[in-house]
């Protein structure tokens, strides 16, 4: 009878230990996956913030160019008419702050995921068990509870941490869904900002070239350099009307390209957020992640934003 009872106890004990081992292994996977997801989310969020900051800069450029053009065209551009531009800059900056807050929250998730709670807890519990065992007044036992106590504490900590990571991921999933919804509803308005900037700068350049105030040959500098063709009069403005019109068209195309790059960056950001949301859902459903495609989109968007930044610097 006693043998039967003992066998059952042994079975229960083994099941118990096996369950904790499985929990421990899953939790370790969750930590690594959570960390990967958090890193990817942080990149996507920073990307989004850079995009909004770029649009705020575009608005500022448009504002200045419009001041110049309004004076040339003799149209009004008073403080009341300028107010929507300031409000637009404020709105874009508040969205950039939102994206940075998203990045910070992903940072917190990354810290939570990278902390090895299981190992820390195991070590601390092991030490405590050894201290308890060493109390002189306690009867000495041949059983050493240290390793079992430590492992158990480590597994419980890992299980708890895994739950916390999933909870954090769920909070971020909700935030990502809301941000994507906002992004999509404002995409058209956002796309028009760099396009408008391009129109304004092209109009100003047209004026400067037509008035022969600038030397526009540099627009073709790369091409002539490639063939080692020196300019006859590199310091003189373009004189004939046909070439002037051609130079203006060239400047327009360059400006249009910038607007196109910005719109493409927006598309990639939108797709990367969609992919990030899908990955969060997979994580919640305990399925594997597919971050490769998402990270490619993030890199694509960032390379567009870097190109815009480079073109801006070249302008200065």
């Amino acid at each position, binding site marked *: 009878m006693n043998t039967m009872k003992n066998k059952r106890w042994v079975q229960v004990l083994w099941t118990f230990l096996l369950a904790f081992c499985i929990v421990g292994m899953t939790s370790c996977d969750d930590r690594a996956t959570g960390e990967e997801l958090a890193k990817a989310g942080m990149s996507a969020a920073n990307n989004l913030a850079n995009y909004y900051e770029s649009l705020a800069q575009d608005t500022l450029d448009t504002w200045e160019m419009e001041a110049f053009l309004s004076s040339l065209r003799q149209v009004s551009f008073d403080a009341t008419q300028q107010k929507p531009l300031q409000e637009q800059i404020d*709105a874009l900056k508040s969205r950039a*702050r939102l994206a940075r807050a998203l990045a910070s929250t992903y940072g917190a998730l990354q810290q939570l995921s990278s902390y090895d709670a299981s190992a820390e807890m195991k070590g601390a519990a092991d030490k405590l068990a050894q201290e308890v065992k060493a109390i002189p007044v306690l009867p000495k036992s041949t059983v050493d509870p240290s390793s079992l106590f430590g492992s158990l504490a480590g597994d419980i900590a890992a299980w708890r941490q895994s739950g916390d990571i999933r909870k954090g991921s769920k909070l971020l999933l909700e935030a990502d869904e809301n941000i994507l919804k906002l992004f999509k509803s404002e995409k058209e308005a956002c796309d028009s900002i760099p396009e408008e900037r391009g129109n304004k700068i092209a109009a100003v350049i047209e004026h400067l070239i037509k008035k022969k105030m600038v030397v526009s040959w540099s627009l073709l500098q790369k091409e002539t350099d490639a063939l080692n063709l020196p300019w006859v009069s590199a310091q003189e403005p373009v004189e004939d009307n046909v070439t002037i019109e051609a130079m203006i068209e060239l400047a327009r195309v360059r400006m249009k390209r910038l607007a196109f790059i910005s719109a493409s960056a927006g598309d990639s950001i939108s797709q990367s957020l969609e992919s990030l949301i899908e990955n969060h859902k997979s994580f919640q459903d305990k399925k594997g992640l597919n971050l490769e495609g998402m990270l490619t989109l993030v890199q694509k968007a960032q390379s567009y934003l870097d190109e815009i930044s480079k073109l801006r610097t070249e302008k200065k």
Partner: protein
Amino acid sequence: MPETNSLKALKDQYFKLDKNFNKLFSACTSDGQRDQLRSAYVNSRDNYWEARNRVFQKDEPLVKKMVVDLKNAQNQIEQALQNLQNIVEVLQVITAAVHLGSSLITLGSMF
């Protein structure tokens, strides 16, 4: 989506006038026509800016709420990490206390 359509219509009108302002201005034959062009340009520009701004302003309360929600989410995640670290710290404090207790017992037995 009527809102999007009207925004697009306003944008198309303003961008067309902006891009072709010089051409249209050259085609004007009187001061009256030139003033009419200036007025049309300013109205279409201001209308579009107003419409675009409304898109952003409409979502502004939502943006503010989302920032607060994200700060709360960040606090919750940081708190979870803090709780895990606290348990380790508590175990370390208990270990130190038990060690001290053992030392006192050992000391007491010596006298």
